[in-house]
Every structure is written in C-alpha cells, then in structure tokens.
C-alpha cells in the first residue's frame, strides 16, 4: 500500500506536519517494498484551494492512504472521491505512525474541518 503523510522536513524521523494542504513536504512510503521518497508540496504557497491541489497531487502519485492530523473539507472530498483512506496521526514521527498503522493502531480520521481558507499565501 502506498502511504503519504505531511512532514515538516525531509526525514522519516520528523513529526507529522499539523497542516495537510500547506505542509512543505509529503513523505511517500510503500509498505510492500519499504521504499520511501519525499515530495515538495507545490500547493503550499497557493492563494487558495491548497488542500484541493495537494490532494490532487497525492492522487496523481497513486497514494492509497494518508496519515494526517487533520484534513479540510475540500481536500477530503477529493480524497474520498479517489477512494484514498484517511488515518488520524498520533504524536511521534512518521516512522512511528507508519508502524502503528501497520499494526492496526491508527483510527480513521472522522473529523473533517470546514477548511482554514485564506490563512496562507496572499490574503484575498
């Protein structure tokens, strides 16, 4: 399964970034091969719709599940439509969270917030 998680820096030992759509990077992790890579989040500087663009990018990379602290409504609509599973991140590093997910220790993200629109980039 291809996993993605928002991260503050390009390291699997970094904590999960609290923002899904405006995180600087995503960690991509393949649970079958154990390979990982980091993606620059081109949506981070968007004036608006960062969550939509970020979700599109992850869907394009074939991501099947994400681990995130929270997720806005628009991004969740894209991820749901693409049948990407959403898991609620816990305290700890990306590696900790991946291990927890493998052991069935993460729950599905149930709360989708209405979005933090216009809080990044240039204000409209």
């Amino acid at each position, binding site marked *: 399964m291809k996993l993605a998680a928002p991260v503050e820096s390009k390291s699997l030992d970094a904590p999960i970034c609290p923002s899904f759509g405006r995180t600087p990077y995503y960690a991509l992790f393949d649970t079958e091969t154990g390979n990982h890579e980091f993606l620059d989040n081109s949506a981070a500087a968007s004036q608006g719709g960062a969550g939509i663009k970020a979700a599109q990018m992850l869907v394009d990379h074939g991501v099947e599940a994400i681990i995130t602290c929270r997720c806005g409504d628009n991004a969740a609509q*894209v991820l749901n439509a693409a049948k990407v599973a959403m898991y609620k991140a816990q305290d700890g590093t990306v590696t900790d969270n991946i291990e927890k997910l493998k052991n069935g220790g993460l729950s599905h993200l149930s709360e989708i917030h209405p979005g933090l629109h216009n809080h990044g980039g240039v204000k409209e």
Partner: protein
Amino acid sequence: MKIAVLSGKGGTGKTFVSVNLACAADKAVYVDCDVEEPNGHLFLKPEITEKQSVAVTVPEADMSKCTGCRKCVDFCKYNALALLRDRLMIFYEVCHSCGGCILFCPEKALSKKQREIGTIETGVSDNVTVLTGCLNTGEVSGVPIIKELMEKLPEKDTVVIDCPPGSSCIVMESIREADYCILVAEPTLFGAHNLGMVYELVKLFNKPFGVVLNKCLPGENPSEKFCRGNKINILAEIPYDENLGRLNSKGLVSVRESGQYHELFRNLLYKVAKEALQ
C-alpha cells in the same frame, strides 16, 4: 453625488447614519451593500417593486468530451478543479469565475453555467429608492452582488452606500464608485483602532473623507483623539441619546420622527456635498 458610509467594525452606526442621511435628502437612493446581513430595510420598510437574481458564471463539465489533458486544472490558480480518473470535480466556492478553464479546454468539454449567489431587491420608501443586496446563506463572497449594485447607481441623484463592516475586498468594491466617504466611529479604544483601518483604506483609494463620531459621551473619546492627531475632518458628533435608541429599537427613522435629528442630518448632508464638490 455618491456617499459611502463605512467603519472598521460592526455596530458603530453605519446603517443609522446611511438611512438617516438618505431620508434627510430631498430625493435619494439608499444602497445596502452589507449583503451578508442587510438591515437598512428594517427602518426604511420599502415597498418592493423588483427582485432580481444575481448569478456568477462557473464551468460545467461534459465528461463525454473530456480527454483528461488537465489543462483546466493546471490553469486554475485558485485550484478550483481536481481531475480524478473518471470525473472532474469543480469546487464552486473556490472558483472566481474568470472563465479561463473554459477558454483553455481544447476539447470544449467545459461550458458556462450560471449559479445564483444572491439577490437585489429594489423598493421605494417615500423620498428614498432602496436597493438591497442579499447574499444567499453559505456563499463565500458577496463581491459580485456589490458589482451588480454599482451598475445600478444613478449619476445625478444623491446616493448613500451603506458598506459592510471592515476594510476587506467587499468594502473596497463598495467605495470604488464613491465621491466621498463618511467614516463612522465609536468613542472607544477599539473604535479608534478600527477607525484607523478604514482611514488607511480611504487614503489608499484617494477618496475625500470625513468622520462622524457616534454615541458621544462627555469625557475622553479615543476616536476623536485619533482624528485630531491625524488632522481628520470631524463632520458631526452624534450624542449617546436614549431617545435615538428607542426610535431605532422600534425600527423608526430618526430624521422622520425628530426635528433635532432632521437638522443634524441635513447639516451633515450639506457639509458632505460641499466637501465632495471641492
């Protein structure tokens, strides 16, 4: 002459000043641009003569023509579109109606669709024509309604534009056509701070302006201090008057009920007209 009435915060008396100013004129047009919560009609009680729908243009996809080239998704700087394997998702509340996606689609899979976001009501209240913009619940931006309202302003009559509170995009649209801006301020520190925000705005727009100090009590008035410090013209001082509160709570227009306030607002109108023509 077009007069915009604005303030940095809600509850300072924009609607009070706008409604009374319009009613003090021989003949005027009152425009309620506070589209999220228009309330001038509560006082003017206009007889509605026309109700018009305001719509924005958004894209609509014909998936039988879409080849998945993503030109529309990549073009949209607001990220209002997402392309999944078999469907194009369109986020209408993110769309700014620029029409770029429709122009760029090589397959002509996108077409224009009208989506209603609110209404404009036209009515009459004695000597005042009332235009009320109203944004539908749940909509993000009332700017298209303001733009539509601005198209309807007559060139010759006295026009009073009751602006939304604050100094954001929607306020900028509301004052764009104005010949003069009246800033309404409360006698509090918070009031003075928010007066500072709209003061910056009208300076940026290079509009002639003056301040109406509302709810004035004896003693220190931080908004008055702000005006004196920045050499801002104070047009009128409206006292904190329980009689005004009583008239307002009954939904009455003070200049139509009280000779004292009729005179105050006639004088204000005269001052503004003189300043605007300078």
